[in-house]
């Protein structure tokens, strides 16, 4: 923050300069104060996570001390060990990874094709299809759980990866983002790359996809995160522990007899770890990707 120093007053030029100096000082203090407030709030924002970490390395009996304290009388990793033996966390990691990766791939492919078609290709009823897809953004997915469940029941696919993956693929918002992105691509770039009379597949593969890197990045990221963190549908569709994803599995850890605070906090930490790891590696890109979705 640039701060202008109050100017030395020379006799005769007093009034205006001292007023500005005064204003500068007040403005500086105000800025410093406001920044301080935001720093304090940012630290406050970190408290819940820090508390979870702190609790996860305590022995269970130390987690119920009243009043709560950050002290760790007996440091131990036993809660972490207990998570792996008490639950199928390893399997949940794998399930979450498989489901999230496959959904992301399928979503990016289908949505980019659709977005490209709606933006660049000509065909009948285009406006109608675009409107129909947009309307899909407003459907609350939780309202569809019963019909979806029945569909997979009839197909005998409950408690399988198909049940976890397929319903999460159609994402109208992804189509919207791709379309908006393709709308914004400069025409000359496309012209330069285009072979005259290219058919739709070549056009898509050779031209659209390479241009769409930023949109692909954005859609991949938030699809991956949203799929990984999706709770309700996997919770219902996975009827055995071996098929659950991390959020669904953690939903069963919330319940339990006795004092299990350290166990719950260590499951929370372990459950959050994969995405946090990815986030730390690619922080700037993730944030840019998310921001890129919103702006035109």
């Amino acid at each position, binding site marked *: 923050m640039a701060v202008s120093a109050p100017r030395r007053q020379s006799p005769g030029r007093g009034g205006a300069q001292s007023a500005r100096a005064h204003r500068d000082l007040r403005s500086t203090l105000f800025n410093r104060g406001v920044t301080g407030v935001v720093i304090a709030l940012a630290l406050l924002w970190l408290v819940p996570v820090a508390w979870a970490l702190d609790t996860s390395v305590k022995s269970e009996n130390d987690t*119920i001390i009243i009043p709560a304290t950050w002290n760790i009388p007996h440091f131990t990793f036993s809660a972490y060990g207990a998570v792996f033996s008490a639950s199928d966390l390893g399997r949940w990691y794998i399930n979450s990874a498989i489901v999230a990766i496959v959904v992301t791939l399928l979503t990016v492919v289908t949505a980019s094709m659709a977005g490209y078609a709606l933006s660049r290709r000509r065909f009948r009823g285009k406006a109608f299809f675009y409107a129909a897809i947009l309307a899909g953004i407003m459907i609350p997915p939780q309202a569809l759980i019963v019909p979806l469940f029945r569909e997979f029941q009839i197909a005998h696919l409950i408690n399988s990866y*198909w049940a976890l993956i397929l319903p999460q693929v159609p994402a109208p918002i992804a189509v919207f983002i791709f379309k908006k992105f393709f709308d914004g691509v400069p025409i000359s770039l496309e012209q330069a790359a285009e072979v005259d009379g290219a058919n739709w597949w070549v056009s898509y593969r050779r031209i659209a996809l390479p241009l769409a890197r930023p949109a692909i990045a954005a859609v991949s990221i938030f699809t991956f995160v949203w799929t990984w963190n999706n709770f309700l549908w996997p919770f219902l569709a996975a009827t055995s522990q071996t098929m659950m994803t991390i959020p669904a599995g953690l939903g*069963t850890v919330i319940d*339990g*007899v006795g004092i299990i605070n350290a166990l719950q906090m260590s499951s929370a930490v372990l459950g959050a770890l994969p995405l946090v790891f990815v986030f730390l590696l690619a922080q700037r890109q993730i944030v840019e990707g998310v921001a890129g979705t919103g702006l035109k």
Partner: protein
Amino acid sequence: MSAQQHRGARLSTGSAALLNRRAFLAGAAVLGASLATAGCAGTYDIGAGFSGNSGGDNRSTLVYWNLLSGGDGTHMEAMEAVYTKEHPEVDLQSTILAWGAPYYTKLSLAIQSGSPPDVAIMHLSRIHQYGPPDMLTPISLDLLAEHGMEPKDFTPLAFSKAHYNGQLLAIPLDTHPFVQYYNTKVCHKAGLLDSSGQLPAITSAAAMLDALRKLKKIGATPVVCDQINDPATPWRLFYTLYSQAGGQVLADNGNRVVLDEALALRVLTFIHQLATEGLMNADVDAGGGTAVFQAGDAGLYWEGEWNVTVFQAANMSFSMQPFPALFGRAAAQADSHTFILPKRQSADPEKVSMVLTMVRTLLGQSLTWAEGGHIPAWLPVRDSAAYQKLKPQSNYESVANYAVYDPPAWYSGSGSDMENYLGEPLGSLMLGSMSPQATYDQMRGSLDTLSRETVPV
């Protein structure tokens, strides 16, 4: 360049790098996953995940669902281990699902879809939901005898309730009642213990208030009983006291509501008084209640018996007894864990036999189960010297004979609508934030609505 083009270019370079890194991450993840699967092919059968196979169709697998977590889960695993040791040719796949409505919903859906587990745990109170629509395989007494079990081997009350329309549909494992824990040190300080160091039975509401006031005087939490995020416990407290007063809730399989206003208000007023006089701490959830009692702050603790191992592990000076009869006769709310054989599309006698063998083996391990606090339904163990020596668990074994199960209806039972609808206002009552009359009105209203709904089972 304009701002937008600038941003576009920036995004492109950033995203190109990102794409490379993402590709790397994705590749690493998939590689890692495949390595894990290759290395643990037996344990992590990804292929099964894609075929949706619940595994129960296999001749040599037994799929077993239960909702036993925590200490119960550990005991059940120990019991299962005995079975798998005796029968190494059987692959016992046991799945633990969360307690409550989702468990029963998933179970119903699995049965309906034709690929249910081979055997599952069901609370006895739920038999009115699973009996009528023909979802359970009946077990003939002959079949039972072939596998070493006879009616006389089980707690009479639980065994009789395991029938529907004259057929045996479930095999009881235990009875788990609502009980009273007490901290011997704290109660001694309040002068409540008798000469042998035990808490004598409290036989009236007035006597209970008296005892609680004495505890309050020495600065302890007189009694702790949880209700946050837990409508089951308030329901159990109410139903215990109300049944002691001789009241009935439902009749005619749940089609008629016979909740007696006068009796209910007697009980509700008592509970309200505990809250307003500061004699009960209900501002805790299940974990919090356990914590308060374990910390030695409370004299009494009202809860199901399953916390016994927690307090033993904490080396507490405590004991347990049947819930005191405060309103006349002896009664305590209870339920039973039972084994059920969900109905399959086509009957499979060999599978049934496997299941019954497993059940018989587990029943033989009832002492392990009893350590977790439950009263075994398998009488050969319950009447044994070993169980009688198990203290404080055997203190309340008589409750199995006079326990009150949830009133029969399709909408009642453990984790059911009725438990939730009634438990919620009762929870507010326990905090003193709802009046007895308002609580009764809300309970009555909910029951009226439930009894009039079209039966979906």
